[in-house]
C-alpha cells in the first residue's frame, strides 16, 4: 500500500516535495521479485510507471499477483523492451541489490512498511500525520 498519491497531488505537483522510493523485500518471495522487476524497469527509465502498475495490480501478499510471469506481463503491457526486461529479471541482475537495500533499511530501523522519512526524520505513514510533518518541514505551520 502506498500513501503517495495524495501527497503527490498536494505537495509534489506543486514543487514543494520530492519523493524517493526505496524498494525493500520483507514480506516474502514476491516482494523480492517485484523489487527486482522495478529495478529492471528503471534500466529503461520507467521505474515510476512500473511502480504504479505494481500497486494497480496488487492482489494480496504472495498470492501470485507478482509472479515472474505476471511481472513480465506488466512489462509487456507498459511496452517496455521485453527481451531486455525478461533477461534482466531472469538473470537476477538486481537480486543482490535488493537484498543489500533491504538489509541496509533494516539497519536503519525499517522493520515495517511503509516506513517514511521526511527530511531525515521518521514519520507516521498515516496520511494526516504525514501531511502535518510535511507542512511543518515546509515551515507553513498549516
Amino acid at each position, binding site marked *: 500500500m502506498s500513501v503517495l498519491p495524495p501527497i503527490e497531488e498536494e505537495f509534489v505537483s506543486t514543487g514543494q*516535495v520530492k519523493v524517493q522510493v526505496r524498494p525493500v523485500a520483507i514480506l516474502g518471495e514476491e516482494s523480492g521479485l517485484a523489487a527486482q522487476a522495478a529495478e529492471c524497469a528503471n534500466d529503461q527509465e520507467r521505474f515510476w510507471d512500473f511502480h504504479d502498475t505494481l500497486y494497480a495490480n496488487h492482489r494480496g501478499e504472495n498470492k501470485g499477483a*507478482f509472479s515472474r510471469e505476471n511481472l513480465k506481463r506488466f512489462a509487456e503491457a507498459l511496452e517496455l523492451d521485453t527481451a531486455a526486461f525478461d533477461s534482466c529479471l531472469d538473470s537476477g541482475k538486481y537480486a543482490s541489490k535488493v537484498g543489500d537495500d533491504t538489509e541496509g533499511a533494516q539497519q536503519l530501523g525499517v522493520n515495517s512498511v511503509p516506513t517514511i522519512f521526511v527530511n531525515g526524520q521518521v514519520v507516521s505513514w498515516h496520511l494526516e500525520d504525514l501531511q502535518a510533518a510535511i507542512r511543518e518541514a515546509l515551515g507553513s505551520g498549516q
Partner: protein
Amino acid sequence: MARGSRREKGPRRGGRGQAALWPYVIAVGVAAVVVAVLIVLLIRGGDGDGGDGGDGGDGGDRSVILPSPRPTEIAQEGHLLGSPGAAVTLIEYTDFQ
C-alpha cells in the same frame, strides 16, 4: 398453349430447386453453430486451466491494469519523483506487496 404451359411451369421448377437447397442450408447453419460452440468451450477451458494453475490466487483474470499516466510536469528520474530542488525530501521504504 404449349409455350404458355412452359412459361407457367418455369417458376415452379425454380421453386422446387430452391426448396431442395434448404436442407443443405440448414445443415451448414447447424454445423457452423456447433463449431462456434466448440471453439468457445475450448477457449474457456484453456483459460481456466492456465489461470488457476499458473497464478494461484490470481484466478483466470490475466488482464493488466494500467494506471493513469502522471502529469508530464512532474519530474521523474530513477527512483526520484518531483522537482530536484524541492525543499522537503520524503523517502519511502516500501514493499510492493
